[in-house]
């Protein structure tokens, strides 16, 4: 594969990846700090290059329902937004999950609650990983920590979305969305032809041929017994994700006595804190969950038998720390350190928190 080196914002990388990964449609609504995604697409005019449809909708509610329509018709479709807009999309997301539709939703998280702030945050962890809308459902959640991962995860998202017929969320934050970094981009993946869609998504509503009954995309089943069966099928799917598609990264874990657990921007900060800690002779490491659902529960359970304590570093009041505690089952001390409302912790304060809350506590 030919690789080209680019310098881009995280948000632009998402847009470039959409075009190059054979995405059929992007539907969105502007919101800071992710507006560059649609701006970049509109400048690039992918409809002339690959035939990709790009449309600015009247709201996030409308965008996510456009995604529902396109996904139900077997197309690779996506949207992106930031926290308040993602809240508006929760209705659409639960319908997408209920109707088992593959799609990609990017959340470039900003501080909340409410209108909050436009600065980076990780306070939408619960919303992303515990369903978000009504009913028992899960999104597959990827957490990029670099501009390169913003790009790469778009490709991964299509694989997972169509493998499980499930919405995939890229849970980023305002820092990763806005920062400019170098990244390698690869060849264009062609958009699927109608024939390919018929094979890959035979369940989709692309027009009824005479050879089959009509396809129906819906999340409604009024017969409770059947609705329970449908729910069991969804749960089985989530268990499969937990079995086969958990992703994480370990940094300096081999000899670590103390672990940072952090994803996205916080993982980048924790990495620097490790460097500072190691300089002081502290045996610190990092477990970076790449998938937030499914969560690396098993690996954290194993590590909890080896280390003396873990510090969950998040730009939130303490959300992922709940999952870390569930995974470690009191085998080691688990604490949380976070800044929130748009504030970003420094590596020094993160290391200090490790020392005061875990090592010297």
């Amino acid at each position, binding site marked *: 594969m030919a690789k080209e080196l680019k310098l881009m914002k995280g948000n632009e990388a998402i847009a470039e990846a959409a075009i190059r990964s054979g995405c059929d449609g992007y539907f969105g609504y502007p919101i800071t700090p992710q507006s560059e995604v649609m701006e970049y697409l509109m400048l690039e005019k992918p409809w002339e290059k690959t035939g990709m*449809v790009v449309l600015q909708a009247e709201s996030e509610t*409308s965008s996510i*329902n456009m*995604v*529902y329509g396109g996904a139900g018709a077997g197309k690779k479709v996506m949207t992106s937004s930031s926290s308040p807009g993602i809240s508006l999309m929760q209705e659409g997301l639960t319908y997408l999950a209920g109707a088992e539709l593959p799609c990609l939703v990017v959340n470039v998280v900003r501080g909340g609650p409410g209108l909050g702030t436009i600065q980076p945050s990780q306070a939408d962890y619960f919303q992303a990983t515990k369903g978000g809308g009504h009913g028992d459902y899960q999104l597959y959640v990827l957490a990029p920590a670099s501009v390169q991962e913003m790009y790469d995860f778009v490709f991964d998202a299509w694989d997972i979305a169509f493998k499980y017929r499930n919405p995939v969320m890229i849970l980023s934050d305002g820092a990763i969305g806005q920062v400019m970094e170098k990244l390698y981009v690869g060849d264009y993946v062609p958009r699927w032809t109608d024939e390919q869609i018929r094979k890959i998504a035979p369940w989709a509503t692309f027009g009824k041929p005479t050879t089959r009954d*009509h396809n*129906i995309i*819906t999340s409604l089943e009024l017969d409770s017994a059947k609705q329970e069966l449908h729910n069991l099928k969804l749960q089985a799917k989530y268990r499969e994700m937990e079995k086969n598609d958990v992703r994480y990264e370990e940094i300096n874990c081999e000899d670590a006595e103390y672990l940072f657990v952090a994803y996205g921007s916080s993982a980048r900060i924790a990495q620097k804190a490790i460097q500072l800690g190691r300089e002081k002779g502290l045996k610190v490491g990092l477990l970076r969950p790449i998938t937030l659902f499914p969560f690396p529960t098993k690996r954290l359970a194993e590590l909890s038998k080896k280390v003396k304590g873990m510090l969950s570093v998040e730009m939130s009041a303490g959300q992922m720390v709940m999952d870390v505690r569930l995974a470690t089952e009191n085998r080691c001390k688990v604490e949380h350190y976070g800044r929130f409302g748009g504030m970003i912790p420094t590596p020094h304060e993160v290391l200090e928190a490790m020392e005061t809350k875990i090592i010297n506590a």
Partner: protein
Amino acid sequence: MTFNQEIIKPENLVYTKTKVLTDAVMHYCPGCGHGRIHRIIAEVIEEMGIQDKAICIAPVGCSVLAYNYFEVDSQGAAHGRAPAIATAIQRLYPDHHVFTYQGDGDLAAIGTAETIHACNRGENIVIIFVNNGIYGMTGGQMAPTTLIGMKTATCPYGRDVQLNGYPLQITELLAELPGTCYVTRQSVHTPAAVRKAKKAVQMAFENQKNKKGTSFVEFVSNCNSGWKMSAPAANKWMEENMFPKYPVGDIKVNGEKVIKNA
């Protein structure tokens, strides 16, 4: 007792249910207009030979299960969102015939934004709007189109303007938008009305074939259960009360407002 049984032969057949409707028994109340409107649409799809390109977007409301009756690929929308869903599919499959089927609560209350913006963008879709002035599915509550003074479960003393505002003539509103090509109001309470309404639906799908923009067909219909009347009485009440507020006829044809004689 039987009559004229000797003429019942295939060569004498003049009317039977179209194959673009499934054999599922419709869940609608006896006498409901939905069944007739479904059939008109299905007949037009059959006659135009577009069954393999037709995609139905069903709403939330009484016609939530419409996808069980149309023998075409279908999607069930969240409440009010059908025009957004139709927008995406039509843009991704520009030669298909995507149509939404929506009630007054779905289209003119919760989905007002989706409706107006799809029409304003001139999406090349067909919107079928069934207006019976009431929420049927949830048990007869007030709709945006409920007439002043009309009693429903949530305006039990009659719709009061001070409390509930005015009935929304969304069809006239949509005719003002440059994106709409064809805007019409029809009914299906008599054989003549059904025949006329079918021509309107046909024109809507023809416009779509010729990529002329949004075609919007309102049906003033009955809800005999919600109105608490027999079906024939509901049709009569509709003529006397609904038609003065929601007059039947074309409002906009080929992008031009129809000038009515003063």
